[in-house]
C-alpha cells in the first residue's frame, strides 16, 4: 500500500512525458480546385478511367440544370492536349458532349456520344445539327479509353478527348480558349429513325490548362421516405457536405423528379446549419420515380449530384421483413434462455455443494482437529 503514491507519481510523470511528445496527426486533406466564373480544365495527373469518381481525381466540374448531367474535366498538356471527361447522367440513351472543333468559332462541334453499350465519335456543324460519325467519312475513332458503368438508374462515363487531334474531323484546338462546349441528351424519335436532341444545355465555355485553385469536393446525400400513397406528400431530405464531412449551411440544393415527360423541378431549398434541406413531393400516381438532388457548387466548392428511386403505391408502402420477427424472437429467447438456465444450474450445483450441512460439520471437525 505504501507504494501506491509512488506508482501514481510515476504514472503521472510518464503520462506527462507521453503528452509532451507531439502525437501523430492526420495528414491534411488535399484541397481541390474550383472558382467562380468560366470553367477551367486544369492541368493535372491523368484521371483513372474506371467508372468511379475518386475525390480529387477531377479538379473541375459543373452540373447542368437542364440536362441534369454532372460533367467533370481534367486536362493533360501532352501532344494531343487530352481532355479527360467524366459524365454522371440519368439518361439511358445517348448522352453527348459537344466541344468546339476549330480554333476560330464557326459552329462546328466535335461530339462524343456515350451510352451504356457504345461510345461514338462524330461531329455536328453549323448547317446541320444531325450527328455524323467520323468513321463514315473516313475519319478515325478518336475517343481515348472510354469506360461506362451503371449504378442503379444512373450512368457514369469516363473518356479522353484530344483537343489537338490528328483527325481533321475532330478538335483542332491549339490555344487555351475559351472554347464552347455543350451537353445534350439524344434519342431516336419519329417513324423515320431520325435522331433528335430532346434536351440540350446552354453553350458553356471552358479554358484549357489553367492550374487548380483552392476548393473542396462536395457530396449530396439524398434520403427518401418509405413509399406512401399516391397524392400523399413525401418529404425528400437532402444533406450537403464538403470532402471533410463538414456540413455546408445556407447552400441552395435543387431537387427534381423524372416523369414520363421529362424532369419536373420540385424546387430549390437552402440547407440549414446541419447542411440539411428538405423538399416535399406529392406524386399524382403510383409507380417508381427517379429523384435527383444537386448542389451546383460555388466559390471554392465543386458541384455534386445524387439519385434515388422513390416507390409510391402498395409495393413501396409495405416493407416485408423476412423471416417473421416473432419467429426470430422466439428462437433467440429459447436459445438464450437455455444458455442462461444452464449457467444458473451450474451455479446452483456449486452453491448447493458449498452449503451442504454435512460439509459444514466436516469443516468444523477439521478446524477443531
Amino acid at each position: 500500500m505504501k507504494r501506491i503514491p509512488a506508482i501514481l507519481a510515476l504514472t503521472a510523470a510518464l503520462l506527462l512525458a507521453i503528452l509532451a511528445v507531439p502525437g501523430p496527426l492526420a495528414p491534411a486533406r488535399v484541397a481541390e480546385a474550383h472558382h467562380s466564373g468560366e470553367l477551367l480544365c486544369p492541368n493535372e495527373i491523368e484521371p483513372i478511367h474506371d467508372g468511379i469518381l475518386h475525390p480529387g481525381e477531377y479538379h473541375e466540374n459543373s452540373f447542368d440544370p437542364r440536362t441534369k448531367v454532372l460533367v467533370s474535366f481534367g486536362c493533360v498538356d501532352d501532344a494531343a492536349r487530352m481532355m479527360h471527361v467524366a459524365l454522371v447522367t440519368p439518361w439511358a440513351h445517348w448522352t453527348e458532349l459537344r466541344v468546339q472543333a476549330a480554333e476560330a468559332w464557326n459552329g462546328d462541334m466535335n461530339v462524343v456520344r456515350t451510352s451504356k453499350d457504345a461510345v461514338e465519335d462524330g461531329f455536328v456543324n453549323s448547317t446541320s445539327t444531325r450527328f455524323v460519325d467520323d468513321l463514315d467519312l473516313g475519319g478515325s475513332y478518336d475517343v481515348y479509353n472510354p469506360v461506362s458503368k451503371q449504378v442503379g438508374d444512373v450512368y457514369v462515363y469516363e473518356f479522353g478527348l484530344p483537343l489537338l487531334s490528328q483527325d481533321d474531323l475532330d478538335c483542332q484546338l491549339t490555344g487555351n480558349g475559351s472554347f464552347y462546349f455543350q451537353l445534350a441528351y439524344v434519342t431516336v424519335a419519329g417513324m423515320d429513325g431520325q435522331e433528335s436532341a430532346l434536351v440540350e444545355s446552354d453553350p458553356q465555355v471552358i479554358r484549357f490548362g489553367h492550374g487548380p485553385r483552392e476548393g473542396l469536393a462536395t457530396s449530396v446525400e439524398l434520403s427518401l421516405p418509405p413509399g406512401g400513397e399516391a397524392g400523399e406528400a413525401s418529404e425528400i431530405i437532402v444533406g450537403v457536405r464538403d470532402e471533410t464531412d463538414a456540413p455546408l449551411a445556407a447552400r441552395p440544393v435543387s431537387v427534381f423528379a423524372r416523369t414520363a415527360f421529362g424532369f419536373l423541378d420540385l424546387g430549390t431549398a437552402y440547407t440549414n446549419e446541419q447542411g440539411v434541406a428538405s423538399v416535399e413531393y406529392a406524386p399524382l400516381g403510383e409507380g417508381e420515380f427517379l429523384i435527383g438532388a444537386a448542389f451546383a457548387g460555388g466559390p471554392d466548392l465543386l458541384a455534386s449530384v445524387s439519385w434515388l428511386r422513390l416507390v409510391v403505391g402498395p409495393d413501396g408502402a409495405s416493407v416485408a421483413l423476412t423471416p417473421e420477427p416473432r419467429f426470430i424472437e422466439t428462437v433467440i429467447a429459447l436459445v438464450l434462455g437455455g444458455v442462461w438456465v444452464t449457467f444458473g444450474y451450474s451455479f446452483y450445483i456449486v452453491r448447493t455443494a458449498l452449503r451442504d450441512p454435512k460439509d459444514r460439520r466436516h469443516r468444523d471437525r477439521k478446524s477443531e482437529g
Partner: protein
Amino acid sequence: MDEMEADPVLVAPLRRTTWRFYVMCAGLLAVVALGVYAYVTQLSGGLAVTGLNDTISWGIYISNFVFFIGISHAGTLISAILRVTNADWRRPITRMAESITVIAIAIAAVFPLIDLGRPDRLLNVFAYGRLQSAILWDFLSIATYLTGSILYLSLPMIPDAAILRAKHSLGRFRNFLYNLLAKRWTGSRRQKMGLEKAIGIMAIVIIPVAVSVHTVVSWIFGMTLRVGWHTAIYGPYFVVGAIFSGIATLLIAMAVFRRVYHLEKYITVKHFRNLGLLLLALDIVIIYFTLSEYLTAAYGAEEQDVAWLNALWTGPFSLLFWSMVVGGFVVPAFLLSWRRTRTIGGIVAAAILIDVAMWVERFLIVVPSMATPQVPFDWGVYQPTWVEWSITAASFAAFALLYAVFSKVFPIVSMWEVREESQAPAPAPSVEGEVPA
C-alpha cells in the same frame, strides 16, 4: 503434499513483487491515462476529432472490437475443448487462457461504445432495439459470453482460493476475494464432485456460446449488402480466425509468465509444441479461407469486387494486405512447420506475427469495404487520428495491466488442477521427461 498446501513456486508471484512490476504497471497506467484523455477529447469534440466519417464510420475502433473478441476465444478452446476431450496436458495453462477470455471480452465490449461517439445512445438499444437486428444479437451474445466466461473462470478458482485463504495472509483485499469465493470450501468429496460437475457443464455450454459470439460478430458484416462483407464464409472464417489469434495470444502470455514467474516446471516445451501444432493447423485453414474468399470475389469480377480487390492488392491497402499474408500467415507456417524453428522462441515469434497479422486482417475487413464506393462518386478516405491511436494503445495497455494484476491476485497456474494431474494413476510424461509436481 497436503491437499491444502500451496505450491511455493506458484504462490511466489503473489507473495513477492519486484520494483520492475511496479514500473511496468506505471507505464501501462500512463498509456491507459493517455487513452482516457483521448476519449475525453472525443467526448467533448465529438467524433470529428477522429478520422471516422459518413462513409467510413467503423475504423480501428471496430477493428479492435473484432480483434479482442477474437483473442477471447483462447479460453474457450484451450480450457473447454481440451477439458471436454480429457486432454490432461491442458491443466497448467487453463487459467491463463480463461483469464485472457474474460479480460479480452471486457475490453472488446467497450469499443462499440467508444465508436458510438455518444455513449448515452447505448440506451437506444434497450428503448428501440429490434431483435431482427444482428447488432442486438451481438449485444446479447457478448453479454452471455462475458457472464459465462466469468463463471467458467471463477469455478476452478474456488479450491485455490481456499488454499490461499487457509495458508497465506496476502492482505485484506485479496483475503476478501478468497473469502468471497471459497469461504465454505472444505475440499470434501461431495464438494469436489459438485464442482467438477458444474465445470463440466460450463465447459460444454461455453463452447457453442463462444462459437456463436464470433459468428454473430461476423454476421454484422456478412448480413450487410456491401462488397467484401456479404459472404457466407464469414461465420466459420471469423470463428477460426478468433481461435487462431486466441491461441497466439495465449502462447505469448505463456512465454512471458514462464520466464517472469519461473514456471518452467509447469509450462514445458510440450505445451508450446502442442499449441504450436494447433496453431499451424489453424494457420493452414486460415490461408485456405483467405484464398477461397478472395478468389471467389476475383473470379466473379463484379465491378465493385474488382475495385475492392484492387484497393487491397495493388491500391492503398496493398502494403498491409501483403504484409498480413506473407508476414502473418506464410512465414509463421514455415516457422511452425520446421522442426528446427519449432522451438519456444520460434513458436512465440510466429505467435507474435500472427497476432499482428490478425489485427491487420480485422482492419482490412472493416475499412476497405467501407471505403469502396456504393455509388460511383463517393470513394471513402480514412486516416485514424491520434485520438484513435491513443485509445487503441490504451486498450492494449489495459489488457496487459489487468492481466498482470490478475496474476498477482490469483495463481496464474491452477494449483489444484496441476496437483490432480500429478496424482493421476498414470501421468503422461512431458517431451523432455519433465513431469509437473
